[in-house]
């Protein structure tokens, strides 16, 4: 089992993830051609202006108004992206398989960052359950997606802390990590891919066509 999840499954996950992202990207570019306003209105200057304002904490009005969401969201996303790439255990796996190597996070930092992802997921869950305007637009799939995103981090933490049977936890961790990678392109987790483009288009339209700010 361990051999399968740490070998072929990871391969499959990466292949599905990469090809899925490429497929979504190409599909988006092709349908953008059909949507006649997109290419004529896109502007690099205003795209970057908008992205800049929405990738800096508190640089937009809504981020200032909802400061708690802003803090948690930024921490969540930063940790969610950095931990898988820079965790020593992950780098060791890559080194073992392909001989590739890059700088790693310290063990303590990795652990704390993982805890942040888990706690932030809990924050999002509570928010979804407690706030009527979010509850109203919540489908079961929203909980499922949150679980999919949080599971690799929770199981990773569990393995690291040896909370349960280590071998089993590691296997579950690898499975949940692979599942998350594979579903990104095909679920709303694909906002990872689409975010820069939706933001860029809105920034272009507000900037170049409407001479206004969009933050």
């Amino acid at each position, binding site marked *: 089992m361990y051999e399968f999840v740490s070998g072929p499954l990871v391969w499959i996950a990466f292949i599905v993830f990469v090809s899925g992202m490429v497929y*979504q990207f190409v599909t*988006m570019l092709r*349908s*953008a051609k*059909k*949507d*006649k*306003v*997109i290419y*004529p209105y896109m502007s690099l200057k205003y795209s970057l202006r*908008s992205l800049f304002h*929405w990738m800096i904490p508190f640089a*937009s*009005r*809504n*981020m200032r*108004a*909802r400061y708690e*969401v802003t803090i948690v*969201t930024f921490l969540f996303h930063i940790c969610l992206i950095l931990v898988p790439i820079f965790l020593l255990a992950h780098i060791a796996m890559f080194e073992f398989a392909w001989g590739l190597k890059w700088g790693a996070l310290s063990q303590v930092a990795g652990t704390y960052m993982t805890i942040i992802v888990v706690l932030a997921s809990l924050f999002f869950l509570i928010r979804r359950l407690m*706030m*009527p*305007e*979010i*509850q*109203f*637009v*919540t*489908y079961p799939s*929203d909980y499922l*997606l949150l679980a999919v995103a949080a599971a690799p981090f929770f199981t990773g933490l569990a393995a690291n802390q040896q909370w349960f049977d280590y071998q089993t936890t590691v296997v579950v961790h690898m499975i949940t990590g692979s599942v998350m990678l594979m579903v990104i392109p095909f679920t*709303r987790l*694909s*906002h990872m891919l*689409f*975010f820069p*483009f*939706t*933001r*860029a*288009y*809105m*920034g272009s*339209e*507000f900037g170049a*066509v*409407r*001479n*206004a*700010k*969009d*933050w």
Partner: protein
Amino acid sequence: MGLPAIPIVSDPGLDETVKELTPEKIANVVNRILDNETAARFKVYMKTCVHCGLCSDACHWFLSNDRDPRFSPVGKVKQTLWEIIRRKDSLNPAFLKECSRIAHTECNVCRRCSMYCPFGIDIAYMIMVVRRICSELGMVPQFLQDTVNSHSVTQNQMWVKQDEWIDTLQWQEEEARGEIKTARIPLDKEGADVFYSVIAPEPKILAQLIGNIAQIMAVAKVDWTMPSFDGWDNSNMAMYSGDFETMGRVERYHHEAALKLKARRIVMGECGHAFRGAAYDGPKWLGWRQPPIPLIHAVDFYHELITTGRIKIAKKFETPVTVQEPCNIVRGRGLGQKLREIIAATCEDFRPPDPDFEHNYCCGAGGGAINCGPPWKTSRVKGNRVKAEQLAATKAKIIITPCHNCHSGIEDIVGGYKLGMHVKFFSEILMEVMEIPDEIKV
């Protein structure tokens, strides 16, 4: 969730049409619009929205209705588009009626939510897709559809006949000449610097605004003209009902009238939605990158007249004023700064609203909502309580609204919430403060 019942409003445009709908008819239209007319934006927005609800606080409907989730931007999309997609082939007529109520009467497509969505999802565009579907099924509130029919038949919003139009202009020219000797309304003059266009309610019910502009043009010595023929109306309710074919026709007439007179540029009266139609929505639908001849809004024009000294200010307006910043020229054209500058140049005591500029709340009337007519007035006024509170907090006496929709919507709110304030177009302020040289005074 224990939400209060939404009052039932009877509207023949919806109540009668719903009887003629069948699930098959609905499925046909839905499939046609979603498969052929919507493309990248629609699909990517649907895939990207993570249902976070962060757009909610942007919406005056949501804030004014005690944070009722059914009025949040994403809540409105959920009740309409998500359901349409989920139940594509089994949509019942009653559901479509709900869609029209939500999309036509409870959203002003003001695009404030676009500035609150972290992903920049254009929720107003999604609501317009719903309106498009409703319109193709004839599911449009009656008063709104009536204006669209008028556009379609007469090329103007209010069934104004050509002789009535010319007659009104001549009457207003006479009125203006009662004040200023040189005031004229030149008709069909070729090659003029300014082609001036208005919305049809001006000749129909607010004709003195045309007389005012004749005086302003005379004082500023502007070389201008108005057409005696169709294309003089720059308003466009088809843009908001979802009848984009008629919308395109109306915009083409407007631009072509100016082209026919070889005007150097179009100056549009104080209306926001008309500007939106002429500047972006019309050109987009017609496949034009830009309008064929330069086109500016009245605020831009007044700014030019005042800053270049063509109009001098005799005495500043003394009563405390605040401003309603129209979505379609401030969030829609960045004219907020120029609007502030002309107010600063003409008014002594300006009380800024909070929030302001691009973040100002919508008047609640735009986006075709006020055109849905009297049946929907109560819910519309209720849906804009935050605006009333915002205006009251300025403690101003006059609200300057350089937009017809804002003007009417704010008047309803002033009445509804007993604010004791008055609403004025900027041209009315200008009429009171501009210096009229003695040699042209009557």
